[in-house]
């Protein structure tokens, strides 16, 4: 099950990388803080999805492990 979850993480990771390709460039000057803020928003969706999937996955695991107990 861990492997499958790992696969989902990898798929999300690739999606994040792809999404980076479409981030529009701005004129560079000396303010690295803005890039970090934008980066968090760009990647945030994928990481939120991974948290959601993790919660969902744990629920499934718990559901089946309960069934196994009976």
């Amino acid at each position: 099950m861990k492997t499958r979850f790992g696969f989902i993480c990898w798929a999300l990771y690739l999606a994040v990388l792809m999404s980076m390709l479409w981030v529009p460039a701005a004129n560079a000057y000396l303010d690295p803080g803005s890039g970090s803020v934008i980066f968090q928003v760009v990647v945030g969706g994928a990481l939120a999805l991974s948290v959601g999937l993790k919660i969902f996955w744990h629920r499934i695991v718990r559901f089946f492990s309960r069934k196994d107990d009976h």
Partner: protein
Amino acid sequence: MTKAGIGGSFRDPSGTVFESDGVLYREVAHSYRPHYDALLSNGLYESLTASGLLVPHEEVDPDIAGGANVYRVIRPERIPFISYPYEWCFGALKDAALAMLRIQSIAMEHGISLKDASAFNIQFRDGKPLLIDTLSFEIYEEGTPWAAYRQFCQHFVAPLALMSNVDVRLGLLSKLYIDGIPLELASALLPGRSRFSIGTKLHIHSHAKSSQKHAGARVSVRDMKGRFSSRAFRGFIESLTSTVKSYQWQPSGTTWADYYSEADHYSREALEQKRRVVAAHLDELNPSLVLDLGANTGIFSRLAAERGALTVSLDLDPAAVELSYREMVSKDEANLLPLVFDLTNPSPPIGWSNAERDTLDRRGVADVGIALALIHHLAIGNNVPFALLAAYFRKLCKNLIIEFVPKDDSKVQVLLASREDVFADYDEKFFESGFENYFEIRQRTELAGTGRSVYLMRAP
């Protein structure tokens, strides 16, 4: 009453740190009032101080600060010895990073977030990391990204990734960059394979690329309000936690980490005698603060720590310090502070006006300095005359337990094997006269069968 500002605290408009009559205080500015009140009133302060993650404080009369802008004045519990991230071993930096993330997670449960994630805001007390910056918190504005994300990556993720993936000595880069290692520098130094680690790729490589790309965007976290869900925030903290946890480094194989396990220059009896002599001197001196100079894995530091003295255990070898740190953690030793420290090139005063981070001697003069099996490395290995050694040791401590290692010792011969012997003055007579300018020699004990002697000296 004299009031003196402390180190780098001028940066924070929420309130500077100052010292008055030897006591440490911190102002809380009126502008910070809502955040301070939220921290104190919603259970976060109790939760963090109870779990040892935040330094506790007491509120005192605000008049002590004497300013119109002062809402409160707090007296934080004083950390007995300040250390800096570039002096921490790999394990200590990793534990500090995880503590910071845990604090952020707990804060989020209370609707509060960290606005700073500087590694300098973490100190070690009783062998554990804690946050010393009470004013690092702010009320979290729902839907905004983490304001301290970049700082956390520069102060923790970048050095840990470099130490783990390239060379553990790259932790020393934090000494050059007071606000953390620039991410594009870390990205350039990391090997190509690090891009296959999700966390490193995300928090360093892609993050660095985005920072460069959007450097002129002038976007603040508030501009992004509503575009960052709480689940995304949680995702970031979980991802950072698993990334930090994934970094590993195993200390072994260096000259010093195996020093005592491979010791051929001491018989068991001589080592035992040395231990007894040092222990007896410590019992007599009953110190509160001890500096063990060239401590290796901290065998002798522990003699002092076991007697209740806070013992700062310094060695230049990251592997030896790591082994000492791990032993401290596993045995829950409270009085030890193992640090990576090169006595031939001590931590300099850095930051604005060279006054933000202190030199070792300005962080506290030890009651006792211990310098065992060290003198030959400094006098012969680094060509420092005895008088200069004594002068520096005098700045560091009031009493000194120091071992003299004669020229015919096997370890000195190793040092001389690859260099010309220009050390005609290296003998015990010159050693004594060099040190007598700064210390009074109180006792000399020969270590049987070694030709070495342990001295007890006291500053006049």
